[in-house]
């Protein structure tokens, strides 16, 4: 098969692929911590997965297969852009790739994150929205909220750490609700 197939991918495959997007992006971002690059690699990975849909064994482990292809794509991306970007070495990427990414836990973390996000003060929510939803650069955020860059950077740091701590606290609750 050359290029992108004109055939629609099977429904079950499409369902699995769409359901995996969140984890797949998280996995790629872990190996390649730059959003733009990670999104490019995610797209390339999705295209390859769609092209290879016919090769996928429905009895196989879809996530493992998809992650493996994503890792190859990360490596290929780094090889292509090695000279111009600040990236991890191959050894570090291999070590990070070996870290277990529990998709079920990611889904629960997402629920906990929602609860925690709601608890953020309004000024933090505004900065979080600009950074995470609108993808604004820090200097643009600083301009919009009328604060120095260092202050915005520090606030974003606090937002992340506060959320991580909060998510840890909320996880038992979310897990319990999930089991009901």
């Amino acid at each position, binding site marked *: 098969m050359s290029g992108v197939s004109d055939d629609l991918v099977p429904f079950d495959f499409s*369902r699995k*692929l769409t359901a995996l997007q969140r984890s797949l992006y998280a996995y790629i971002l872990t190996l390649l911590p730059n959003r733009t690059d990670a999104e490019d690699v995610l797209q390339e990975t999705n295209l390859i997965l769609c092209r290879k849909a016919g090769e996928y064994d429905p009895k196989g482990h879809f996530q493992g297969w998809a992650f493996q292809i994503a890792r190859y794509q990360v490596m290929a991306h780094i090889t292509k852009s090695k000279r111009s970007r600040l990236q991890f070495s191959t050894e570090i990427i291999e070590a990070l790739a070996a870290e277990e990414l529990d998709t079920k836990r990611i889904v629960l973390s997402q629920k906990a994150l929602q609860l925690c996000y709601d608890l953020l003060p309004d000024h933090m929510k505004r900065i979080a929205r600009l950074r995470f939803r609108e993808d604004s650069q820090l200097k643009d955020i600083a301009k919009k909220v009328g604060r120095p860059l260092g202050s915005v950077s520090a606030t974003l740091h606090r937002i992340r750490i506060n959320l991580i701590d909060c998510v840890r606290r909320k996880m038992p609750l979310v897990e319990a609700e999930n089991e009901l």
Partner: protein
Amino acid sequence: MNASDVSLKEVELLTVRVLDGLHEQKDMDRLSVLLSSCAAARSRYAELVVQDSLLHWETSEVLEFEPSESKTVLFPKLPLVASFAAAILAVFGVWHWNRSAPSSVEGLALGGPTTPSDKPIASAAVASATPESQLASYSSPSSEVVLEVGGDGPFIRSIDARGEARKGIMILDKKKWDGDGEGGIVEIREDVVAWNREEHLSVPAEQGILPLEGDRMIKLSKLGIDVRTHSAEVSDTVRVLDLREIIRNQGASTVRLNTSVFFNQSIGIVRESTQFSLTVHAIKSENGEPHRSIGHLETSLNSDLNPITWEELNSEFEIPEGTDFLVVALNARREGTNALIPDLGGFYADQLHLGLVVNEQEAIRL
């Protein structure tokens, strides 16, 4: 605080620097040393990065702040609605395109991929010189401008696009040109003042799409999906033109807007044509009254699936008497069950040219 705590704090600091793009080579080197030194550091790093990816995701979908005026939800940059869309698909058991009950415009939207020879496929112009019959009123608490617009297109359904239009009208109306244009640039071309958002929306080459000319092109915002109607669409206001000087003060008898723009889309999971359109709304303003649309035009085409080629869309709009402002928006729309499937593809426009022809004289290039 022990040595382990210190190094984990350092991992946090460095990871956040990397995620915010504030890092240098020495930061990467140091982070690499820490990550290779212990599993706890890798775990902490992964925890932060995964959270960032979820935040990026969640704030696009669930943690939406704007009041919703319709059933439309923001289509995320990444496919956050994956499980939702899949569930919808499973429930309906649909595996083919939804081609039911097309209206004249829907029929065009649902048509198959076009060849260059059959585009533009539609010129669904609905222009009237009288106030439009069905107008919806929109305003925001932060804006003094109330905008009533008619019709039934992506621009009408887009809170963001209408919000930008309102903002542009307010900037031009109040002559608030001293700032940075608030997401746009104020330009003066002969007797026309324009609020131009093109630069604000422009991006360099990406996702395999090269600008048609130059090194920048317009990237439309993320698609919003409407589960109820099985559609996904977006609208971006690109220009607001102040015609008061020409029409009201100089008494121009005939004014026409000629438009030309090219569209393209990148390859996504769903290999499907997209209906691109350009809309123009003629807005009349009266002291103390809402700004009201007194005529509009929507022209559209269906894109091909080739990211190398750009499709051209041209239109002409006879501007109704009494028009004070023109709002020009670019839109993209998909229909059918596949519109619910998250797609990473981008939607682009380039070489948007507007020409204002006054009294059949030479056009003012805007």
